[in-house]
């Protein structure tokens, strides 16, 4: 079984059965998961921040770091594996976007990440089918290419799926 592990800002796609794509400790970051039922291709991006305008150089070097560049870059990566490239018919899932305990929501980057990703998806006429976002939980997520099963884990909790 091949495992593709993504770091912060990393993105990757696979269509080989038996492959697992995963990313660790999302914190306020969000994992965007795209599953293409037609080609049985799965892609994931580990998005850290909402907007690339704060550092265009970083966006060019690591497009997966930002929501506005990460989603199109992931689609492009999946196109190389035979997907249509426009996202039509793809299943979208989101995981992560946690926040620190703060009733004032002062620095809710997690929420901003989720909203920025959804904005990009809406512009591409794509909608989120399932999500496990927010809360005070740092999540690790893995997606199995052959089944499309998304497994989430976090220290001190039993694994769960969406």
């Amino acid at each position: 079984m091949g495992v593709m592990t993504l770091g912060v800002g990393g993105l990757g796609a696979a269509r080989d059965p038996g492959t697992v794509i995963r990313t660790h400790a999302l914190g306020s970051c969000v994992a965007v998961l795209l599953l293409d039922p037609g080609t049985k291709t799965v892609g994931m991006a580990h998005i850290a921040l909402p907007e690339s305008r704060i550092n265009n150089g970083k966006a060019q070097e690591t497009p997966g770091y930002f929501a506005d560049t990460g989603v199109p870059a992931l689609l492009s990566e999946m196109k190389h594996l035979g997907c249509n490239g426009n996202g039509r018919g793809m299943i979208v899932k989101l995981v992560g976007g946690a926040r620190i305990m703060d009733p004032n929501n002062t620095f809710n980057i997690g929420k901003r990440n989720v909203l920025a990703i959804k904005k990009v998806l809406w512009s591409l006429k794509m909608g989120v089918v399932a999500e496990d976002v927010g809360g005070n939980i740092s999540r690790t997520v893995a997606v199995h290419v052959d089944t499309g099963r998304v497994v989430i884990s976090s220290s001190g909790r039993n694994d769960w799926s969406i």
Partner: protein
Amino acid sequence: MRKAKRGMAIKEEILNRVKEIPPLSTSASQLMMLMGKPDRDLQETVKIVECDLGLTAKVLRVVNSSAFALMQPTTSIARAVSYLGEKMVLGIALDACTGSILRRPMKGYEGRSDALWEHNLMTAIAARRVAGFAKEEISSDIAFTAGILHDIGKAVLSEFMNGSAGDIVSKIDAGHAADYISAEQEMLGMDHCTVGFEVARLWKLAGPLPEIIRFHHTPARAQEEVRAPVYAVHLGDIIAMMGGTGTGSDDMMYCLDAGFSDYIKISQSDLEKIMLDVEVEFKRTRSSMFGREDETS
């Protein structure tokens, strides 16, 4: 009554375990003292390193690692120190004497090997950046040094909390404990901040360092004159957790003290830029110190 007695016994056991923490090396202590002096000279750092053979070897190994991509390997300590910077030299010195406790798995927090050391390092880098946003000037060097030691108490508490991460997380989720600090206190009668303070006293850490370690989750309780650097470490700690570099089951389960805005002027956009810069510096430092490369990105 029996519960109170048991609580006292656990506290005593924890404090006994604090006494078993390895001492700081002479060079690490000297480097920390030096970092507290605003008028220091880089040559003083060079001298401290040169007097410690083990540290000399480690500094040269790091500077000649692939992360720094020097054209020619160097054997000059002066050049190595100048290239690495004082803070990384301090990090190497601290790793040499505390690595055995900071790099082991954090069973009580279900954290992997290196998790505590990496979290401390990222907090230190973030705290130093945050210090630059203080309303009144504070030492970014002190913020860095305090950051790199701020969670030392977890190294002691971890074994006393073995097997309890699930219960604590459930309690917090259900609203029966306000945060991880409260849960630690309820379970053991002490939290990682107070235990860290005891370690700081044992190590005779100078200046505001013990106070910063003690109040990094409750900055408003620190003395007014050190509150700004305490807030810098408080925010640095939160930035590290948000960036996914926490210590395990307690990630994100602490409260942000909104009082930071009286001492540190930082916007959402500033925070995002800091997160980005900190992540880049953290990766580079981790790669050079631990030889650990990041995953696909």
